Structures are given as structure tokens and as C-alpha cells.
């Protein structure tokens, strides 16, 4: 069993075994983050390229720091200052990076399936850092890692995913990953923001958040993706917040020890109220910390530091 040299495109296609391998490695690598000198030489001489066609704070910094902590050299591509502005295609851009000796490409892209396309173009491994409305597999792995931190297990846990499921790659990756590991998932949101036939993925779907949250161990709040709302999917952010935003009242339907998660960036006061986001039940910043460890583990396994 090895992830060495492989792409990480989706949790739909990733085996439970491989997921657990990444999680257990991340568990041991996390300790590095609290050392005074946060650097191990494992991936010295390896180059990781961040190819981001969409804005990102967390994911991009997280991959960059993960590479640095492992002594790999991160390089970044920014859409605004790149030759893409001159009309260069993704395939050409990526093959040029490969020709310069890059060992791995991490890509964020606004079009679903772009990482699958890139993996056909390139010989070097591709890691999906979020493609359109499809998947964000490293986010879901860090989410699962965080849940394990608090709940010590996944099997049998009730996870409620609330909000804009339609546009959410985070929701898709979590649904694929968490169901593989035995969680019971409910999703809820306005029906206009629930994708068709979602229940065939093995989840329960509700149009009222309270029903999904009832008895939940984990309440996962999705960001309302304002940049992808091209149509009249809901009347106003105010109304969305009233009926679908997570506040103290809606959270009262969950178990008393339920944790609250969010992939960031938050629209405070829209999908989540500030008092909940900043409450002791919120593990949102733990997710961010876990993210670095999980990405260190992914780079480690794919770039194959040592066998």
C-alpha cells in the first residue's frame, strides 16, 4: 500500500485504507508544529507548485507551510500575474511547470473536474486543492482528522452538513469520506441549494436545518458561496440567515457535546452567528491547524520521503 507518485483527486476514488494512512501519518507529524524549530529534512530537494486559479487564503498557505515544514520548496502561481492573462491554456502552463522540474502540483480551480484533466496532462502527481463544485479532498481529510481529535471515532457518529450543499466541494468530499468511514450524514438547506438525487450518496436530506441537526454529534456549517450564486436561488442573505443560518437556537437540537465546524472563510451573520463561531463548541481553528498536518502527511506519502 503506497500513495507514492499517485494523484489525490477525490475522496470518491480514494480507498478507506489510504485515507487512514494519511490520517495516522498526520497524527504523528502534527507534533512538529509545536516544536521550536518547525522543520524536518524529509522532503529536502523536492519542489511543490501551488497552482491556484481561484482565490485562497487557508488552503494555499496551508500547503505552502506544510511543504516548508517538511523542507520541500514551495513555489506559487498567481492567476493575476501569470501568462494565463495572455491566454495560455492550463495544459500549457502546467507542462511548462513540469518542464522546470516541479515534483508535484497542488491545484485549485473554479471548474469541476480540472484536476482530473490536469492528471491526464501531467506525469507528475496532482493534488486537488478544490475543483469547482466537485471535491476538496484535503479539506475533508483535515475535517475527519479534527472530528477524530474530539470524538475519537467516525463510525456511528451523526454529522449534519448545513447550507449551500449544491455549490460545495467541501460537502461532497466530506460526504464521500465520512460515509466510507461509517458516519451517518444528514444534509439540510433550502431545496434550491441541495443537489439532485443527493440521497443516493447515502445521506439523508432535509429542507429544514433543525431536522438534520437533531441529535447530531457534529454540525458542519457550509459557507454560502456568494460568488457562485448566479441565479435566483434564495431571496436575500437576511432571509437565508433567518431560516438556514446556524444560531444558538438551531444548535440546541444537536447533542450537548456537539462540535461546530466550518471550512472558512466565514460569512459571519449569514450562515453562522458570531457567538457560535467563537464559542467553545467551535473547532474551526483546530481544523486549520489539522490542515497543515494533514497536508504534510499527503506530501510525505506522495513524494515518498522514505519508505
Amino acid at each position, binding site marked *: 500500500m503506497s500513495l507514492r507518485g499517485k494523484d489525490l483527486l477525490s475522496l*470518491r476514488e480514494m480507498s478507506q485504507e489510504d485515507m487512514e494512512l494519511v490520517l495516522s501519518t498526520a497524527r504523528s507529524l502534527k507534533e512538529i508544529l509545536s516544536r521550536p524549530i518547525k522543520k524536518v529534512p524529509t522532503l529536502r530537494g523536492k519542489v511543490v507548485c501551488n497552482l491556484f486559479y481561484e482565490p485562497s487564503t487557508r488552503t494555499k498557505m496551508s500547503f505552502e507551510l506544510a511543504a516548508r515544514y517538511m523542507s520541500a520548496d514551495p513555489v506559487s502561481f498567481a492567476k493575476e500575474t501569470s501568462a494565463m492573462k495572455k491566454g495560455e*491554456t*492550463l*495544459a500549457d502552463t502546467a507542462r511548462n511547470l513540469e518542464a522546470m522540474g516541479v515534483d508535484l502540483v497542488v491545484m485549485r*480551480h473554479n*471548474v*469541476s*473536474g*480540472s484536476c*482530473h*484533466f490536469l*492528471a*491526464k496532462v501531467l506525469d507528475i502527481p496532482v493534488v486537488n486543492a478544490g*475543483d*469547482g*463544485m*466537485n*471535491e476538496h479532498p484535503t479539506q475533508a481529510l483535515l475535517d475527519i482528522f479534527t472530528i477524530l481529535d474530539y470524538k475519537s471515532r467516525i463510525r456511528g457518529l451523526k454529522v449534519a452538513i448545513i447550507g449551500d450543499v449544491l455549490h460545495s*466541494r467541501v460537502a*461532497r468530499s466530506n460526504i464521500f469520506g465520512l460515509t466510507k468511514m461509517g458516519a451517518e450524514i444528514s444534509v439540510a438547506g433550502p431545496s434550491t441549494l441541495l*443537489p*439532485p*438525487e*443527493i440521497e*443516493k*450518496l447515502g445521506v439523508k436530506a432535509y429542507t429544514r436545518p433543525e431536522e438534520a441537526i437533531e441529535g447530531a454529534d457534529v454540525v458542519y456549517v457550509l459557507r454560502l458561496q456568494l460568488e457562485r450564486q*448566479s*441565479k435566483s436561488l434564495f431571496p436575500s442573505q437576511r432571509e437565508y440567515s433567518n431560516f438556514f443560518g446556524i444560531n444558538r437556537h438551531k444548535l440546541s437540537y444537536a447533542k450537548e457535546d456537539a462540535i461546530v465546524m466550518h471550512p472558512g472563510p466565514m460569512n459571519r451573520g449569514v450562515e453562522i452567528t458570531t457567538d457560535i463561531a467563537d464559542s467553545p463548541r467551535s473547532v474551526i481553528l483546530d481544523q486549520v491547524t489539522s490542515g497543515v498536518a494533514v497536508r504534510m502527511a499527503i506530501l510525505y506519502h506522495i513524494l515518498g520521503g522514505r519508505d
Partner: protein
Amino acid sequence: MADHLLIKGGRVVDPSSKTDQVLDVLITNGKIARLAQSIEAENGTTEVLDATGKIVMPGFIDMHVHLREPGFEYKEDIGTGTRAAAMGGFTAVACMPNTQPACDTDTVVGRILERAKQTACVRVYPIGAVTKGRAGKELAEMGEMRAAGAVAFSDDGSPVTSAEVLRCALEYLKSFDAVLIDHPEDLSLSAGGQINYGLISTVTGLRGIPNESEEVAVARDLLIAKLTGGRLHLAHVSTKGSVELIRQAKAKGIRVTCEVTPHHLILTDETVLESGYDTNTKVNPPLRTQEDVAALKQALADGTIDAIATDHAPHHFDEKWVEFDYAEFGISGLETAVSLIIDRLVLPGIIDWMKMAELMSLNPARILGVPGGTLEVGAPGDITIIDPELEYSILPHNFESKGKNTPFVGWRVTGAPYGTIVGGKVVMYDRRLAV
């Protein structure tokens, strides 16, 4: 001295006369001259083709292709598109007007026919635009285009969006006895869509195009056809609901015909997922579900669907080798259609050879009102010869078409076009072009 072509020993399948028997076919001066059990060749003046073990049918007519000329010759031109047609067993093609400029005047119709005369190896029937610039606002000069040789009218690539414009066009065309071919799509329901709306769009995160985006338009078109009594043909129907609506409309006596493509009869949206987002599976209307495929096959068998057309949509490699949302819609279909229909529909017994000839030859000729579609004496000497046993792999790099964009790459199929004869002239024989 007469010019004779004698096709000997083939199984002749001709739906116009319900003939299905081994016969020799003699073509003289470009026309069908005689069918009989044994015709002797006249020494020196007769070219003889041995068709033993083969099936001889009236020439196939693809009533829906995009030849891309003028304007998009980097994708296809009339020469390469018609060579692809000849290789694919088609003796005639009707080409859609979404060119640059659009085929919306008699000048462009004339230009296409002129280029066809210079470069085409099968018959080319231009389809004129319904509206100026295919913009859906004002009627194009359809009478002038008809006089110049346009056989039908369509804004294909786009629907005729306005119901009122559609109504006027169907009324107006009554003076010119031509069919209006609509591309049924409600653009507000399909906006931004990449693949079929449903489980697969949910799993892939690609935006979905619901069946209803087609069915809403089909229902509207049928109502306008009823209102006007005009001749309506619906292009590339892809859903169960569409064929149900059309079946009901036909039962009520509305003048409507429709076509289906090979890819909608064979593939489903699951292909998009299985292929890892292969942009060659991106087509409009999108590949639907197994339920739709089953309904389309049923509608073929019961006569609801009148024709099989390829919607041959060649694109340049660069236009498909991009992110899914940025790829062009369309499949290069001329060189795979006949084999796919034999392999997936005839050999499994969903339709028989007679039905195949009806769907690919007789009915397209009747819908468009063009010669051919029959082997009766005096008809054009247009013939498609089929090898029902040849087994081969579909390899797009061997296509005559410039468009290599096919989701059927590597498919192993049985049955192939073996000969294409246009006006008594052999343009393809034994899987090789003779021109």
C-alpha cells in the same frame, strides 16, 4: 455508350418497396436501372462490384451535420466532412447553418453548393437559417434560400427562442413546402449546464441540464405546430419525456417528425464520470440516463422516432483539451454512426435491417423532400453497402474528418459501411475512399 455499375450478389434491403432478398442491382447513367436475381454485365462498359455477403441499401442520408464551412474550416470543411460521410456510408448530408457567416441568405447557400461542387464527394444539402444571423428576431429570406437550394430551415445550435417567431416561420414556410427543424432547448433552464441534471451532475459537481429544458421546448413547438399546421422536425431528441410528447402529438395528427443521434441511443451520463471528465462526452443535448436510452430505443421501434442523424459536430483538438466547462459541445459522428447502430441496435435485435434503412435513408429523404431513400427504378443511384460481419476498433486518428472528438475511441464494433455509391459513382469501397 451507357455508363453501368452492377452490384452483384448482395442482400438488397429497400424499405420503399419492402424488398429483402438477394438481388443484383444495375445503375445506368447514375440512376437505378434494374433489380433482378441475375443480371449479366455488358463487356467493357460495366463496372462490377461483388457484394456477396453484404447488405445493399438505398444511400444513407445524414440530415443533421455541421460541415463548418464557411468560417470554421479549422474544425472541418466541405471536402473533409463529405469524405468522412463517404467513409461512414452516407451518400448525402444536410448541413446546418451555424457557420460564419451564418447560412442565412441565398448567397451563402449558393456559396456552399459551389464549394460542394468543387470539393464534396457526397451530396450536400444546405439547411438555411430561420432567422437573420440565427439571432431569433427577424425571419431570414427563406424563400430566396429555398430557390437557391436550401432543403430545410433551422437555427440549429440555438432554438428558435421566441414562440411568435416560430409561429411566423412555420406559417411562412407553407408557401415554400419546406420543413422547419428546431433545436428544442429552453435556454433559461439549461444556462451554464455541462451535463445531464441528476445523480451524475451531483457526483461530478458539473452543472446539470434537466430533461425539462428540452421537454418544455418540445411541448411548446408541438403546440405551435398544431396552431399553424406547419411542418416541424425536432432535432436530436434525448429524453423519455420528449418522445412521449411527440408520440401523443403524432396520435393527434400534428405534423411532426423527429430524429435521434447514435450517442443518445448508446451512452449515458455515467460515461462522463467513468471517463474521468473526458470532454468528448460533452454534447448538447447532454448524454442522459439509462431510463431515457430505453425510452429512445422503444420510440425507434414503435415509429415515434423517424430518423437517426449524427449531429456530426467536429471540433479542433485544442477546443476539447481544456477544462470541462471551457470545452465545446459536440461529437464527431459521421464515421462511427453506422457501425454503432449495427453493433448496438441491429445485431442485438432492437431494430432490423429494414428499419435501419428506413431510419437512415427513406425517412430522412422524405422529411427533407430530397431524391433518394429508395432503390426503385429511376431513383438516383445512391447506395450504401454494409459489411455486417467486419469487426474492428474505432480509432479516431484514422478519421477523414478533421474532428477526432469521439467518446467511442477504442470501442470494438461489429458491422461497418463497406461501400458508398453516389449517382452510380463509387466513392468508397472496401473501407477505402475511391476519390
